[in-house]
């Protein structure tokens, strides 16, 4: 019923929205993508060989907001790292997720939201050991290294990870850069 209603609304909305959206919408709200049990592999495949952070969050999770702020700051300094945010909120919360995205400028991030499949199936498609705690983030260094982290990570660790995954050659003194390349400890 909900799906049918949505489809009807969507059909009406599609011709109007893209035109107006250009003027009124931050990119993030217009590009909220549906996360299915295939999406995690697709996101990884699309970013093969480059550093990638996939961060799962929820509008009901306060520590998630703090993690988002850290990722935003890091991404600004290291734009070569791709950052993907996935709202683990059920589809019924879509309006609240959209409102959240309006209030928080997350331009530059690809943003997804959990779709209709059972939540445990979606989580399993990401990582069978993930029990649903948020924030939950995956750091892929583009060279085969993967670190999973639950909860707000230590900021120094995140900084070191970004610096190692995408060194900013022009802004960093050689000596400091060499330090940053040392393997960071776990968060």
């Amino acid at each position, binding site marked *: 019923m909900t799906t049918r209603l949505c489809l009807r609304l969507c059909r009406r*909305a599609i011709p109007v929205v893209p035109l107006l959206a250009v003027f*009124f919408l931050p990119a993030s709200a217009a590009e909220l993508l549906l996360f299915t049990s295939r999406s995690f592999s697709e996101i990884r495949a699309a970013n093969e060989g480059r550093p990638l952070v996939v961060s799962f969050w929820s509008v009901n999770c306060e520590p998630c907001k703090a993690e988002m702020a850290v990722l935003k700051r890091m991404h600004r300094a290291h734009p070569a790292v791709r950052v993907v945010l996935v709202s683990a909120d059920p589809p*019924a919360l879509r309006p609240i997720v959209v409102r959240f995205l309006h209030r928080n400028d997350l331009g530059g991030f690809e943003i997804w939201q959990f779709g209709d*499949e059972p*939540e445990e199936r979606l*989580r*399993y498609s990401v990582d*069978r*050991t993930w029990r*649903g705690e948020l924030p939950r983030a995956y750091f892929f260094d583009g060279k085969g290294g993967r670190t999973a982290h639950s909860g707000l990570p230590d900021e120094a660790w995140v900084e070191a990870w970004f610096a190692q995954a995408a060194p900013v050659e022009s802004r960093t003194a050689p000596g400091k850069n060499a330090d940053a390349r040392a393997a960071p400890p776990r968060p």
Partner: protein
Amino acid sequence: MKARLTLALGLLAARAAFGADGGSAHHGRSMNSAQTELGADAAFDRQGMLWAVHKVSGHIAISRSEDRGRSWENPVLVTPGPEPTDAGGDARPKIALGPKGEVYLTWTRPLSKPYTGEVRFSRSLDEGRTFSPPVVVHRDRQEITHRFDALAVDEQGRVFVAWIDKRDAVAASKDAPYRGAAIYFAVSSDRGATFAGDFKVAEHSCECCRIALTRAPDGDIVALWRHVFEPNIRDHALATLHADGTVSGFRRATFDDWRIDVCPHHGPGLGADADGRLHAVWHTGAPQDPGVFYARLDANGPESRRRVGGETAEHADLAATGRRVGIAWKEFDGERTRLRGMVSEDGGESWLERDLSATDGASGHPRVLAFDGRFYVLWNTASRPLGVLALP
């Protein structure tokens, strides 16, 4: 005006993005889009009638079953209109029954700001035919967190409602950030007509996990919840709530040492056996040994602690009757969500485990109930609404 227009367009745009993608998402399975509406609770009355509270077309509703959940009478709508309920993973409406056939219900209604909500209450004094207009239980009416309601009735028929409350966090100085939230409660001694409160149980609880309440054989109401011990240890705490608003016996109940700033969305289950011993089941993400665990919560610490289920076990619940203890939980096997259960005949020393059911669709968290020495599990799934499984 501009802000409103932008928001409306945002909603449409989001719908468009979902609609365009939606067709490819289902792998041919029939999925329930309203997973959040599957939160349900149930209780047996003294005659063995099973009462369930659940969502029906957005309304809070109750249903009755005379045959242990094999068939249900038509639901009675409690709220006059559809009413949003908290969609936090651990949230669900609650039901408790009074000694004179009273039906008490609570649920959390989200407010407009993120993380906020109010705990609502309705009662029926005519065996579930009509329900009172919902009222807010807590006196504090700030638009802040009053969420994850828990409901219990003590031996004298007094109604206890506990919840997670952020008033202390809001009042705290910005220079000294507050650890977590707090647990508060209110008590009604007049069959839910009025509530006295708000009484504080403890400061520094976790913000997003359900609270477990149970009635001990001596009539006391005992609460178990995920706490935030210093500096950020998300293990569990226990306390006894009294009708005069006092609290006794606060102590740490689990010792997994899960140090993290996170929303686990994963609260505990609690039951008291005939000897007054407390049995609990809980989840921890402590990296050295994550999973779901059972233990008897003796005064000296957890006894007979053991793992429950496999790597993907989650959202366990527990009940106790006599010396028997029953546990049920969900476990996703890569294809289907399985409902599993285990029973101990000897107060938690030895266990027999079995498969109870499975679904490939959406499902709520299981709820274990005891009646007449036997266990039953309420499992509300998209494919089998208000399913009840015997846990032998």
